[in-house]
């Protein structure tokens, strides 16, 4: 609720300015620093962030446990005596709050003015020496433990001056300015694991691009040892690299480059293009684009079977385990937890889950990149993308419409990269050999016929030339062949049974998929029913009953209940036993009835469901399979048409085309939705591929609907095609099945 600034009235309405004022206890400093910072790694990172904000190019970090000291030296702007007094020693002061961008154009990271207090979390003593260009150096010494006294005022604790300060600045820098902080009497031991955590934190503090060119962090953990640079030197080993940027209208311009065959050569661009927003993210096509400009860089690595110059596969794997994931940078600073390997929301694009569900190899169209094969960065800006706001309740961005659109946009980039890798893989190695397809019942039938023929011939031989042939041998052969024939017959029945089971599973899965889509509609019908019955009752249960109102509400409640009933009956009807038998199916009748059953569900979302059905098309098969075909196509069309702002339409067509033996039954469903992106066209049939996202931008489609459609069509020796832009402006999917005419 919004609060209005109503002043509090005191006594007679006037306030007397007195001599009272707040005083600050020295201990307050400890709760701001030592006690408010999660761990010592975070505390150290805070201090290094200050160096970044001070426009340093180099920072030297020494964590020497044996000497009990930590040193952070930068070549930033430095401070003079006045800065120390008016800024550094002033708790809560931060220029960053008003300035926001450093002199060097860096978007500053901290603004609370307490980052320097994190030194207290690291150790009891602090020596700070700083040098501004062409000005005398300055130095102070703080013993934090002196603040740990009850009842002492903060100003009463002295901060000692270091006589003739001389900061030791980073050796790699030629600059004559900067700040050196030395922390002594460390509060905690630094283990190898702590150092590792620190390195990970530091290496992701700034984006790789920046780390290479602008801001270098040098770390040393042994006395007198060498400084090692924290960097991302593995980037060139990326198999494919995607670079894309969304403009102010959401149009994506992208380029995908490939790792050169030999070291030292340049990367080669293998694909580039422009994709309008509505095509890249069809689920968002009904909303105006409001995200603003942002860019995406994704580097895809192979974890095996690759030889890279300069480093081993083991090192590469370690690098990927450290850096794997897609991170978000706002004004070049990490937005946590996106990309954090150990955080529940780290894999925010759900890449691991997709990969686990479908571990297919790169030769398959449904190939999925694993989270630990991808190092990515998404660059947004506070001013460029105001819709992507920070959540006040937790780490990360607010999960709303803008986040959904953003998530879907980045996810689309990953899919583009996957598709490209699959295509390159196939070009180089050829596709996985297609499995030979045979109609098992037909083959079994053929074997049976052959066996019967041989048996008959043998029997003939038996009668004609009994003496010539060996009676025993022939009888045994006949017996053996009969046994084989029996086994084949059993196998044939089993195959039919399996086909039946597959039909049932597909039918059940279809009902499940449809339930997910129509669930919302059912929920809202139930809400209406509850509200209307309540109101109808209230309208009667009063001194002067309101009969017309009550009647009207009861009619509304009845209609709503009927809608729920339609859905319930529809779901139950799909899995009836008689539909699981292979019989002669009147497809015309089946399609007409199904369209009638589903029409109310469509009407509730103002979608007009039309049909153009040729009568008396009969075909042998499972009724459940035909229903599953149509329900899946209709479920997809429903979802797509709902994305249209106006003129929501779906058209179901059924007819027989072609002549003679090449006649085929054609069932198609067209919608007026946003259509299918060409980039997605080859992927839509593969299991678990879905572009559908929920309100929070998470993939919500099962990605099974069209896979089921294709599997049924395959079983019927049929074919499926999808048109990205069909008759109604959106997608059209057509299934065709060989038709022999009134099959009995």
């Amino acid at each position, binding site marked *: 609720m919004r609060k*209005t600034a109503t002043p509090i009235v005191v006594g007679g309405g006037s306030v007397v300015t007195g001599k009272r004022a707040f005083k600050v206890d020295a201990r307050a400093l400890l709760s701001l620093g030592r006690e408010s910072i999660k761990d010592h790694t975070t505390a150290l990172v805070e201090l290094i962030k200050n160096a970044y904000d001070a426009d340093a190019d180099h920072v030297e970090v020494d964590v020497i446990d044996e000497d009990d000291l930590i040193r952070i030296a930068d070549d930033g702007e430095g401070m003079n005596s006045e800065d120390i007094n008016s800024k550094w020693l002033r708790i809560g002061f931060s220029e960053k709050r008003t300035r926001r961008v450093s002199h060097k154009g860096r978007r500053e990271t901290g603004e609370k003015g307490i980052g320097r207090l994190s030194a207290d979390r690291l150790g009891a003593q602090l020596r700070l020496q700083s040098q501004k260009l062409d000005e005398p150096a300055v130095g102070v010494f703080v013993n934090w433990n002196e603040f740990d006294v009850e009842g002492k005022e903060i100003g009463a604790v002295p901060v000692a001056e270091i006589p003739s300060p001389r900061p030791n600045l980073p050796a790699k820098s030629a600059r004559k300015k900067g700040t050196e902080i030395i922390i002594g009497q460390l509060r905690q031991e630094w283990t190898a694991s702590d150092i590792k955590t620190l390195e990970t934190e530091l290496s992701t503090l700034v984006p790789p691009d920046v780390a290479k060119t602008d801001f270098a962090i040098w770390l040393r953990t042994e006395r007198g040892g060498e400084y090692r640079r924290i960097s991302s030197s593995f980037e060139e080993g990326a198999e494919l690299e995607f670079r894309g940027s969304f403009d102010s209208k959401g149009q994506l311009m992208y380029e995908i480059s490939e790792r050169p065959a030999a070291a030292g050569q340049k990367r080669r661009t293998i694909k580039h293009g422009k994709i309008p927003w509505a095509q890249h993210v069809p689920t968002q096509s009904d909303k105006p684009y409001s995200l603003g400009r942002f860019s995406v860089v994704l580097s895809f690595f192979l974890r095996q079977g690759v030889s890279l110059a300069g480093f081993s596969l083991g090192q590469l794997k370690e690098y990927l385990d450290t850096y794997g994931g897609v991170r978000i940078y706002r004004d070049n600073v990490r937005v946590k937890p996106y990309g954090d390997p150990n955080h529940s929301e780290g894999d925010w694009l759900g890449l691991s889950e997709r990969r686990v569900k479908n571990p297919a190899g790169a030769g398959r169209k449904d190939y999925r990149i694993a989270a630990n094969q991808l190092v990515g960065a998404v660059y947004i800006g506070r001013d460029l993308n105001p819709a992507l706001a920070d959540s006040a309740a937790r780490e990360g961005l607010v999960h709303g419409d803008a986040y959904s659109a953003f998530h879907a946009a980045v996810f689309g980039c990953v899919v583009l990269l996957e598709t490209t890798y699959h295509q390159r893989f196939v070009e180089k190695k050829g596709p996985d050999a297609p499995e030979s397809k045979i109609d098992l019942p037909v083959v079994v039938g053929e074997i049976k016929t052959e066996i019967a023929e041989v048996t008959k011939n043998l029997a003939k031989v038996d009668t004609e030339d009994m003496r010539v042939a060996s009676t025993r041998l022939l009888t045994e052969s006949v017996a053996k062949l009969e046994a084989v024939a029996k086994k084949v017959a059993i196998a044939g029945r089993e195959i039919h049974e399996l086909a039946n089971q597959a039909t049932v599973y597909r039918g059940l899965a279809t009902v499940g998929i449809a339930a997910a889509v129509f669930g919302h509609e059912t929920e809202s019908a139930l*809400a209406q029913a509850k509200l209307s019955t309540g109101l109808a009752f209230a309208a009667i249960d009063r001194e002067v009953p309101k009969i017309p109102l009550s009647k009207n509400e009861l009619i509304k409640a009845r*209609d709503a209940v009927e809608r729920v009933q339609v859905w319930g009956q529809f779901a139950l009807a799909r899995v009836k036993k008689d539909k699981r038998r292979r019989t002669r199916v009147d497809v015309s009748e089946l399609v007409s009835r199904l369209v009638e059953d589903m029409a109310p569900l469509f009407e509730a979302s103002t979608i007009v469901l039309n049909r153009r059905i040729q009568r008396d098309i009969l075909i042998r098969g499972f009724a459940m399979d035909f229903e599953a075909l149509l329900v899946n196509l209709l479920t997809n069309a429903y979802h797509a048409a709902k994305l249209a702002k106006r003129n929501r339409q779906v058209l179901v067509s059924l007819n027989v085309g072609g002549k003679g033996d090449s006649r085929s039954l054609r069932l198609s469903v067209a919608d007026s939705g946003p259509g299918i992106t060409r980039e997605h066209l080859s992927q839509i049939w593969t299991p678990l591929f879905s572009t559908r996202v929920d309100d929070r931008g998470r993939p919500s489609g099962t990605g099974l609907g069209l896979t089921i459609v294709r599997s049924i069509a395959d079983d019927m020796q049929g074919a499926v095609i999808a048109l990205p832009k069909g008759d109604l402006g959106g997608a059209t999917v057509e299934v065709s099945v060989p038709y022999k005419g009134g099959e009995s």
Partner: protein
Amino acid sequence: MSVIAVVDDRKNMRESVAGLIELELEDMNLQWKVIADEPLASIDAYSAWIADNDISLLVLDEKLGDEIGASGVATTYTGHEVAAVLREQLPELPQLIITSVKNSDELEGAAELDAIVQRDEFNKHSRVHVERMVRLATRFVDRNEAELAELTSLSQKVVDQTANADDIARLNAIREKVQMTVKGEEIVVLRQVLTEAEAVRDRLQRVLELLKAKAQ
């Protein structure tokens, strides 16, 4: 008379919600008007619509684009987005969302809203929620009426030429605010009177200058 408006894309739903509010108001002996309408074509059209219909409390659904209304175009904005726009234009107008949507970060964090009520909760405890609506709307109307009275008296001062600089600043502040919320006859007439008065004053000024020039 105070007006409560219910906006929902589903006709049956908005009419039932409005019906239930009406019934509760009647039981509270309040002769208030409740109007139910489909979402407007543009999110920017709400403030004028609220002024034109003298609306003192707005009840919104969150998902407004499921059903296409009479305009033939589905709404692409949500209830909380309407609330955010109106909070800028009409900061004091009470706004509520009644919804079946659960677990939405945007809704939970929407400071624009005076309340978010789950549909089931509203059905069960409609009296409590309507009483709350009445309190919010009454406070809003009272505040507006007080400002309207002040506007009339300050305008009178201006006409009588007894207004000082503070009075004029206050008048302008109220006019600025009321202009958007109340488009009653008073304001139109007052504005005309003031414009005419200013024109007369300018003419008198010119006559005075002419006279001075001649006297010299």
